[in-house]
C-alpha cells in the first residue's frame, strides 16, 4: 500500500494515466479523484486508500467481503416480483422489472444468504440499489422475513444491509405492509433473543428507515452514508431553506443518538464478529 501511495503521488494527471493504463487496472476515487490500483481498492473493501470514501457496492461484493472465503448459500434466489396491482404509469410495472433485471443481472432489490463469518454462522440480507433504487416491494419484504426466519430457526445472528430509496410505489399498499411484515419478524427475533444487526449504507431512506433499518439491536453505518426518513429534497421544499452541511449523514445521525457506531467497511467483518462473540450465549 505504501509503495502505491508513493507512486500515486508522483502522478500529475490521473486522467492521462487512466488513458495509458489498461482498462480496469486503475480506479479513480469519485470523491478525491486520486487514482489507485483496482485490485488494491477492492482489497480495501472498495474504499478509497486516500480519503476513505466508501464506494457504493452491491450484495455480491458485501457477501464476498463478509463470508469466509467469500462462500455462502443463497436463499430464495429465484423469487421475483409479481404485479398484483397491474400497475401502469408511463410504463407497465412488469416491463420495468424485465428492463431492470437485464440491466442489473438481479432478480430484485435484495439477496439473502447464509454462511460463516470468522467461523460463526450468520444470515445476511443485503439490498441492491441497482434494482429500481433498492425499493421495497413484496419480494424485498418476503425475502428479508424469510432470512429472519432462517436466523430464528438456526438461532444464529441476522445482519441486514440496507440501501434503499424507500417503498416501491408500483406495489402501493403491498409495499407499505412490508414495513409491518419485517417489523413483526424483528419482534420475533427479540423474543427468541436472536441478535439483529442493522447496517445502513448510502443511501437508506423512506419506509426502509421507518421499519427494519432502525430496529436493530445494533444500528450501525458506514462513514458518510445518507440516512433519513424523508429525502433531503422534500425536507428542503418543506422548510424552504438550504439544509445544514452534513445533514442526514451517518455522523449526523450518530450525533443525534440514532446510530450505535460507524464502522469502516474494511473493518466491518472483524468488528461484527468480535461484537457478536461478546454477546453470544
Amino acid at each position, binding site marked *: 500500500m505504501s509503495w502505491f501511495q508513493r507512486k500515486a503521488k508522483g502522478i500529475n494527471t490521473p486522467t492521462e494515466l487512466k488513458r495509458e493504463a489498461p482498462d480496469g487496472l486503475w480506479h479513480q476515487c469519485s470523491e478525491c479523484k486520486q487514482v489507485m490500483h483496482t485490485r488494491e481498492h477492492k482489497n480495501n473493501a472498495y474504499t478509497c486508500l486516500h480519503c476513505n470514501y466508501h464506494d457504493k457496492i452491491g450484495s455480491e461484493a458485501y457477501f464476498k467481503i463478509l463470508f469466509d472465503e467469500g462462500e455462502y448459500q443463497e436463499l430464495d434466489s429465484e423469487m421475483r416480483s409479481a404485479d398484483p396491482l397491474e400497475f401502469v404509469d408511463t410504463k407497465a410495472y412488469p416491463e420495468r422489472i424485465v428492463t431492470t433485471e437485464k440491466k442489473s443481472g438481479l432478480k430484485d432489490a435484495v439477496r439473502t444468504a447464509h454462511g460463516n463469518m470468522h467461523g460463526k454462522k450468520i444470515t445476511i440480507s443485503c439490498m441492491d440499489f441497482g434494482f429500481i433504487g433498492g425499493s421495497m416491494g413484496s419480494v424485498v419484504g*418476503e425475502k428479508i422475513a424469510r432470512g429472519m426466519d432462517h436466523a430464528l430457526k438456526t438461532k444464529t445472528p441476522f445482519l441486514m444491509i440496507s440501501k434503499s430509496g424507500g*417503498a416501491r410505489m408500483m406495489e*402501493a399498499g403491498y409495499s407499505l405492509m412490508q414495513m409491518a411484515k419485517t417489523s413483526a419478524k424483528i419482534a420475533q427475533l427479540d423474543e427468541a433473543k436472536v441478535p439483529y444487526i442493522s447496517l445502513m449504507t448510502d443511501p437508506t431512506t423512506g419506509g426502509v428507515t421507518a421499519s427494519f433499518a432502525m430496529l436493530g439491536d445494533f444500528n450501525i453505518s458506514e462513514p458518510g452514508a445518507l440516512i433519513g426518513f424523508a429525502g433531503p429534497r422534500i425536507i428542503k421544499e418543506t422548510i424552504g431553506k438550504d439544509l445544514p452541511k452534513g445533514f442526514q449523514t451517518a455522523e449526523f445521525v450518530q450525533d443525534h443518538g440514532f446510530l450505535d457506531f460507524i464502522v469502516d467497511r474494511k473493518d466491518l467483518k472483524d468488528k461484527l464478529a468480535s461484537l457478536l462473540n461478546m454477546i453470544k450465549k
Partner: protein
Amino acid sequence: MRTLLEFEKPIAELEAKLEDMKKLASENNVDVSSAVRNLTNSIEELRKETFTNLTRWQRVQLSRHPDRPYSLDYIQMMCEEFHEIHGDRNVGDDPAIVGGFGNIDGQTVMIIGQQKGRKTKERQYRNFGMPNPEGYRKALRLMHMAEKFDIPVVTLIDTPGAFPGLEAEERGQGEAIARNIKEMMTLKVPVICVVIGEGASGGALGIGIGDRVLMMENSWYSVISPENCSTILWRSWDFKEQAADALKLTAEDMKGFGLVDGIIPEPRGGAHLDFEKAGETLKKTILSEIKTLAKQKPSDRIDARIDKFCSMGVVVE
C-alpha cells in the same frame, strides 16, 4: 358555511332549488307538494348516481373534505367522557396526535388519533395532521399504559404523512415510526385501527398495526399520496387521477387485496353530511370488534396479528 367539491355542486344546486321552491310556496300559500316530491326524488337519484360511481380520485377528495369529521369529533361523539393525555415525557407534546382514555357505552378504551385542524390557525397548530416523532412516541407511551391497565387500544388514522421536517429528522422520525410498528405487534390488549380519512404511508402505519385494521368507506390508504406518486412517476402534478387509479388506494381496493380487514360504511354523500350517523356506525363497529377480540387469549391475538401482517405480499417463485 359548507365547502363543496366539484361533484357535490350539482346536488347542492338542486337542494338550493328545492329550498327556494318550499320558501316560495309557503310565502304565497300554494301547494307545490308534487313538485317538491319530484325534485326530492331527483336529488336522491342524483346523489345515488354520483356516490355509487365515485372515482378513486373523488374518494381521495372526500377523505380530505374540509367538513369531514376528524379524530376529536369522533371522540366527542363516541365517548361520554374523555381524558386527554399529553406529551411523550421526553421532548414535548405533538398536537398532530391526540390521545387519552375514553368511555364508549361503559367500555373504557385508549383512543389515539391523528388530528387535523379546521380553521387556518388550528390547521397550523395541528401541523395539518402531520406528526413529529414526539407524536408517535406519545402514542406508544399511551398504548403501553393501556396495556398496563388491560384496556383496548383504538387508533384513528388521518394523516397526509409523517412530517418531513428538519427537527423531525434530528429527533428520529424513522426510528419513532419503526418502533411503534414493532411494539404494536406485541401489545397484549386488543388493538383496533381505523383509517377515518387519509392513510398516507409510514406516517399512517406508525399507529396502524392492529388485530383489526378498518377503513371508512371514503378514506384512502397507500404508500404514497396520488399527487406525490404523480410527481415522481409522471414528473408532473397533473396525473394525480391516474396515480390514484394505479395505486388502488380505496377501502374497497385495500379490502379486496386483504390488506385491511373491513370497511365501515358512511352516510350517503360522505361522513361530513351526517356526523352523528358516521359516529354512531364507528362506535358500534368498535364495540362489536372489542367484544369479539376480548374472547381471545392475548398470546393468540398477538400470534394472529403477526401472522396476518406476515402473510401480506404477492411474489412469484
